[in-house]
């Protein structure tokens, strides 16, 4: 029993790590620009498919590195042309815009790559199980956690130590003052969005290796990210990190006793948080009210 418990908690943390990756990108965009990016799942899928297309030429590692950058460039273009037009307007419009974008991305993916699911090959050594004791943990899952750890560390360092990062953080608190101080807010928002989409693209490559590629896979991964943000607290990246891990672990624990409820439990968790501490675990009162 203890081994079962231990395994499921570890597994839960790994799943949670993946949710964290998705949710961080979403959170970044939400915090600075106040935009709920419904199309985030769509960018994830594009990231995965671009990697699939590049793999024959660049190999797995090349695709892993190149795809997020290419996805981020697409994201940047989208932000410049479409999303920047709804900043400052009623949040309704950014919701509808990204909603429509999600439709376009899904249909576009299907149009370009076809509806048939595609396998995405990962290197041989990663797909083997680690050992016979913790036999259900494959190298790939550990690899994913490693990547997430690297990205999280990189992101937090970026935000804390670089000038641009500090400006982004300042912008989430008070964008007008930041503009008043002479910062090019437009460029800041674009960069921020691109970073968020970069992370989404990376999530897509990782998901592709785990699940295979399919045009509709984005939508199902979007909701847990949402919940991670709500549970952790809107406006706080640390909160998103904790939220993602928390729902992953909760999911893993439930799988021990009642496997079919392991997805439901994250919704229950969200409901509990909203009832007892509506701003989320690390959220601050008044962030985006």
């Amino acid at each position, binding site marked *: 029993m203890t081994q*079962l418990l231990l*395994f*499921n908690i570890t*597994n839960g943390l790994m*799943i949670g790590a993946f949710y964290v990756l998705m949710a961080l990108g979403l959170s970044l965009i939400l915090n600075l620009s106040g935009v709920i990016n419904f199309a985030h799942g769509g960018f994830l899928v594009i990231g995965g498919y671009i990697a699939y297309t590049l793999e024959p030429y660049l190999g797995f590692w090349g695709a892993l590195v190149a795809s997020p950058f290419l996805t981020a460039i697409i994201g940047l273009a989208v932000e410049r042309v479409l999303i*920047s*037009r709804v*900043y*400052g*307007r009623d949040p309704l419009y950014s919701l509808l815009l990204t909603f429509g974008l999600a439709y376009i991305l899904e*249909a576009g993916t*299907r149009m370009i790559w*076809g*509806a*048939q*699911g*595609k*396998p*995405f*090959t990962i290197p041989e050594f990663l*797909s*083997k*199980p680690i050992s016979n004791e913790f*036999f*259900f943990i*494959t190298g*790939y899952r550990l690899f994913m956690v490693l990547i997430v750890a690297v990205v999280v560390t990189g992101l937090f360092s970026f935000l804390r130590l670089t000038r641009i990062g500090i400006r982004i953080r300042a912008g989430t608190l008070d*964008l*007008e003052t930041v*503009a008043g101080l002479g910062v090019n*807010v*437009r460029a800041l928002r674009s960069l921020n969005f691109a970073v968020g989409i970069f992370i989404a693209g990376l999530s897509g490559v990782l998901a592709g290796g*785990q*699940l*295979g590629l*399919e*045009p*509709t*896979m984005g939508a*199902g991964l979007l909701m847990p990210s949402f919940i991670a943000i709500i549970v952790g607290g809107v406006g706080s990246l640390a909160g998103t990190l904790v939220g993602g891990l928390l729902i992953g672990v909760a999911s*893993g624990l439930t*799988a*021990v006793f009642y*496997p*079919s409820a*392991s*997805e439901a439990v994250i919704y229950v968790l969200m409901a509990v948080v909203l009832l007892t501490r509506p701003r989320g675990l690390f959220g601050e009162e008044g962030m985006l009210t």
Partner: protein
Amino acid sequence: MGINSVSTKLDRRTVIKAAAAAGVAQFAAPFVISARAADTLKIGMINPFTGVYAAVSNNELIGAKFAVEQVNAKGGILGRQVELLTEDSANDVGTGVQKAQKLIDRDQVTFLMADVNSAIAQAVAQVSNEKKVLHIVPGGHTDPITGTDCHWNVFRVCNTTAMEANSVAPEVFKRYGKKWYFITPDYSFGHTLEAAAKKNLANLGGTVAGDAQTPLGTTDFSAYLIQAKAANPDVILVLPQGGDMVNCMKQIAQFGIGKQIHIAGLQQEEESLIGMPPEARTGTWMLEWYWKQPGVPHVEQFVADIRKRSGGHVPTARTWFGYTALWTFKLVTDKAKTLDAVKLAKALGGLELPPEIKLQPNKVYYAAGDHQLRTSSFVGHAVETPASADPEDLFVVETVVPGDKTSPPDTETGCKLTWPA
């Protein structure tokens, strides 16, 4: 200029013109599904062309379109050229019902084919029954369609879950052992598959080591696989389909479970096999039709013809479903020489498919009692490396079990047909 200003170099008019131009382009080939002409005999096909079933729906469409070509080359149906009208049910029952009403009321289709999604197939069957339109279900598997929920105007091509279980369960029992663990997708198709398999197991004298109900769309099967392994069965039956099947098999391969426990299942699809990485392609399954049938007449020609129309891919069971369903309309109208739905439905009972349509060795016919096509099951195993030069040869057929043997007699399916007065 504030931080939130919008610079509009593109003005409204330009964008609308561009969008209109792009939009008009969509209404030209190759994106057009179908055009609508007059005085043709119209047949409607409703399938979820968007969403998770898009790939299999598309294959059904390829088969149906090819059949239309052949039928029209032979003079059409009762002298009229056939026109195939397709509608997307988008995996939503409301949309499926709406499209059915549209095809019947507005487009005046004579015949209907729907739907891969069993729930939609049943809902559309209700509509077609109300409106007295002959309706063939090419690829919706749930048993009640030719069982407890059968209608006089509804027929089905693909296997029922009972037929699938009956075809492969005895083989699995003989080869691998009597203790089975089930991984079942938690929806009606999964439940009926499981029930049919369990029934077989009980009849053969085996035991159920346990079963796990997996929600649709589960991506992580590790918790269920741990339980399965702990139960120490002789064989694990993997019943999820589509993307769930692919994920489950991948994880089984990743964890090396197949080395200790045999893997088998009931229905498998070529589309899923193509979507799996090579190491996941293991296990004993049944396919509802397979393209590699050396020695069986007409099959090679069919494969060659389909390759030309599908971008080089082989036909799958789904392609064959669409092909057969559409050809059935021609066969039965040739036999009964009428378009009256009731007369046609009566004539369809017992109708046997000729070799160039059935494309398999055994006798294939529509049973009069439950309107289910007695089609064969292709039992075999999946292979990691393609069995021949063709990269899509991913299954080795061991036996082809006739539909007569796998199907329960139509008195046992629970179908009671009530004909209109």
